[in-house]
């Protein structure tokens, strides 16, 4: 055991193991604590919640195979540090904290200059906070357990060292008081140099992190509860709290990482599937009513209140980390580029690069503001771009985006859906989803007609027919009679699927005029005895209905002849009998009766 310094007094082997220490509320992390209804935490808030915390300038830290690479979000102060790390680093104000090589160390975020380095005693970093003078750090075993919280000043003096049986989460330090979440529901306040709690907070929501966002501290787990003069009412759910509504999103992303676990130095799927949101000034809402959800290479901007999709960005590599800034988001991808994205429209506000691919990435927006940026087209175009990504890993998010797209009434959405359904680049499952959505569209008929005008054409490189079935359904629902000639032509196009032809034939029952008679008659004649699949049989019967409606006496004669012809397929004949009107009796027959 090494030498420990608490509050300037030299102590040897001083640890707190969850019990046996007295003073204030008693020993830190005691399981015998009696709920004080927010009294102690309220008193602490009165005393220290308004203390000034330094706000970092906005930083991204990447973990590479050889060490750390760091850059300011404004592109300034790029530096690196050689030496492997064994856990995800933490950014605390203007300090970068990491563990590796058996040490826990703090670096000046602006320069990379070491502040201090101590033995980690085999533990790895869980989280850190800093108040500009002292850094609080929680460490633990990589597989859990072995929790300890330390507080160290810039000179490397250890001002606090508390080991605990319960799992400790990511801490903060403010006005000589360390705030440590633990066991998922408590936050204990321990003054530097002491081993006793001065206050304890019991939260109804899970809490594993104390986080500095802007000038404020928040207790985070499922939601963000601000440490302010209402914190004493947390037990009654009346604290200042920002809650993201739970919505089905691809991969079920979470807003706050579990601070009681050691995040590995190499990012995993949970890092690429993540939510980012920044509390508004009142602490009870989210800035701009906007949050971002990432799914590997796709980032989406969503409205907090309605869940409406606002924008979509498709990035060249999976997102590994990020943060919500004022005015937007900073998302770091596996190439080491940090993308700055406007919150409202998803504008491209530029990027900064860590200079090399990273295994994981931590971003703290601090005081950085994302401003301006260029538009990346309409939402429909942004979704189209994302959905066209030829990456099997993206299919879940792509399906989600398609669904959202379908809910927009903008006629351009129809065009995008047609393009997706027609493109050979669209994954089959998504093409099918696009077809379903198209069938339900009631706007953008002009795009539908344009698409129906296309046919397979080997010489012109049109090698996939349009999505005739959903277009037929939608145009019939919209009663677009100008679609009839195009649909009629598709009846006789061998490149169309039997299902497409069936839907075209059904739409023509409603839409066709005598101008389409020739195509329909030709289809009926060619297939009444050769339709080998049920959709074609259905199409022939639908064509017969149309012939009876628009074909006059000639049409009826044709259908009757087919119904009587032994060469007509039996299933077609049954269908024809169903649609044919009763034969008119002749005068002679009537007389005989």
């Amino acid at each position, binding site marked *: 055991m090494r030498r420990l310094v608490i509050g300037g007094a030299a102590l040897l082997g001083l640890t707190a193991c969850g019990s046996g220490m007295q003073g204030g509320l008693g020993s830190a992390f005691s399981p015998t604590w009696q709920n004080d209804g927010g009294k102690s935490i309220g008193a602490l808030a009165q005393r220290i919640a308004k203390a000034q915390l330094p706000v970092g300038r906005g930083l991204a830290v990447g973990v590479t195979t050889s060490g750390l690479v760091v850059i300011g979000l404004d592109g300034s102060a790029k530096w690196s540090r050689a030496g492997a790390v064994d856990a995800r680093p933490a950014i605390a104000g203007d300090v970068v904290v990491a563990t590796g090589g058996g040490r826990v160390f703090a670096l000046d975020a602006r320069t990379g200059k070491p502040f201090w380095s101590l033995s980690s005693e085999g533990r790895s970093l869980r989280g850190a906070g800093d108040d500009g003078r002292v850094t609080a750090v929680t460490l633990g075993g990589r597989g859990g357990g072995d929790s300890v919280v330390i507080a160290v000043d810039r000179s490397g003096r250890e001002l606090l060292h508390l080991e605990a049986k319960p799992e400790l989460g990511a801490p903060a330090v403010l006005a000589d008081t360390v705030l440590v979440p633990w066991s998922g529901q408590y936050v204990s306040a321990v003054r530097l140099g002491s081993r006793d709690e001065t206050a304890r907070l019991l939260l109804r929501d899970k809490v594993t992190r104390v986080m500095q966002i802007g000038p404020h501290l928040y207790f985070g787990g499922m939601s963000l509860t601000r440490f302010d003069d209402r914190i004493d009412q947390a037990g009654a759910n009346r604290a200042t709290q920002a809650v993201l509504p739970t919505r089905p999103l691809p991969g079920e992303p979470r807003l706050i990482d579990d601070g009681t676990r050691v995040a590995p130095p190499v990012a995993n799927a949970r890092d690429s599937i993540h939510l980012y949101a920044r509390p508004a000034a009142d602490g009870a809402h989210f800035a701009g009513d906007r949050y971002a959800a990432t799914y590997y290479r796709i980032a989406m901007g969503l409205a907090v209140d309605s869940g409406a999709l606002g924008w979509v960005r498709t990035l060249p590599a999976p997102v590994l980390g990020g943060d919500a800034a004022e005015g937007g988001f900073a998302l770091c991808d596996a190439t080491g580029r940090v993308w700055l994205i406007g919150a409202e429209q998803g504008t491209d506000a530029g990027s900064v690069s860590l200079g090399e691919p990273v295994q994981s990435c931590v971003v703290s927006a601090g005081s950085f503001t994302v401003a301006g940026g260029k538009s990346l087209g309409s939402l429909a175009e942004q979704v189209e771009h994302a959905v066209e990504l030829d990456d099997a890993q993206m299919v879940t998010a792509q399906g989600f985006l398609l669904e959202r797209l379908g809910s927009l009434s903008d006629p351009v959405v129809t065009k995008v859906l047609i393009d997706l359904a027609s493109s050979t680049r669209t994954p089959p499952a998504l093409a099918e989803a696009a077809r379903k959505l198209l069938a339900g569209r009631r706007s953008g008929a002009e795009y539908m007609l344009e698409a129906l005008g296309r046919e*397979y*054409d*080997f*010489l*012109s490189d049109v*090698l996939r027919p349009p999505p005739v079935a959903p277009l037929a359904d939608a145009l019939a629902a919209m009663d677009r009679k100008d679609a009839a000639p195009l649909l009629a032509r598709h009846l*006789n*196009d*061998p*490149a169309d699927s*039997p299902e497409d032809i069936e839907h075209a034939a059904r739409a023509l029952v409603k839409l066709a005029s005598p101008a389409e008679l020739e195509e329909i008659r*030709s289809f*009926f*004649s*060619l*297939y*009444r*005895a*050769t339709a080998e699949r049920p959709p*074609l049989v259905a199409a022939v019967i639908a064509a017969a209905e149309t012939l009876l409606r628009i074909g006059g006496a000639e049409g009826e004669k*044709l259908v009757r*002849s*087919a119904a009587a*012809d*032994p*060469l007509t397929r039996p299933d077609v004949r049954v269908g024809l009998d169903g649609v044919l009107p009763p034969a008119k009796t002749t005068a002679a027959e009537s007389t005989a009766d």
Partner: protein
Amino acid sequence: MKRNTLARLAILTVLVSGAGWVPAASAAPKAAKAKPKAALDAAALRAELESGDEARMLAALERVAEAGEAAKALTPDVEALLRRGASAKVIRAALTAAGALRQESSSAAVAPYLRHRDEGLRRGAARALVKTGGTAAVKALRAALRSPDAGVRGVAASGLGALGAREALPDLFTALDRRVDEAATSIGQLCEPEECEKFAARLGKLPFEVMTSGFDQILFRAPEKMSDDAKLRIVDRLRELGTAEAGKFLADVAGRWPASWSKRVKQAIDAAVKATGGGAEADD
């Protein structure tokens, strides 16, 4: 290479026999295939075609196909059958019969089957149209170059040459560039000197055996239809190519060159054969 070329020419013969020029190398005595034909009872056959009995209809259509143009009186009946539709078997036989009847009027009734979903019917229609000919056939076959069915595209490409459809040349060039190889033969049949040059410019870009199927047609066009100068330009290109396969092809051409045709072209071919080593014993 020679075997390959001859095989292609043989296919062409099947497609165009009776509808145009037949390469000398593949011309077979037609008389050998002729069979004695019984007198046709048109009225009886007509009744069979309208019987609605598949077996009887098939038998009647076979009779019509065998009789060929001699059964011309039944053309309207076959066309009516195609228009009203029937089972795939019957339609296949009707298309064969329509082709055998060789009546231009049938093209309109045959053409819709080029777009039928049944591959056999599509291809049967394409073959029939090459025989029935006329404006409607050319129009349908040009459209068929755009078909999703490679077989139909191939027959259409061959057929357009056989039908002398010069207006289809732009489409045939596009089709050739998209590897409808059969278009090469038709281009060779239809091109004027400038177009033949355009075709020849593809030498080296398309497989040699595809190009030779067109060159063969150009070189063996009758002297009044293709100038010696145009033929010499083709020979020069092949000589410049200088490959063994070019030499073999030219040697084959030299061997088939009609004695009464241009001596100047023949001398150029012989010189090119010598220059390319094509006179050596073929190793295939």
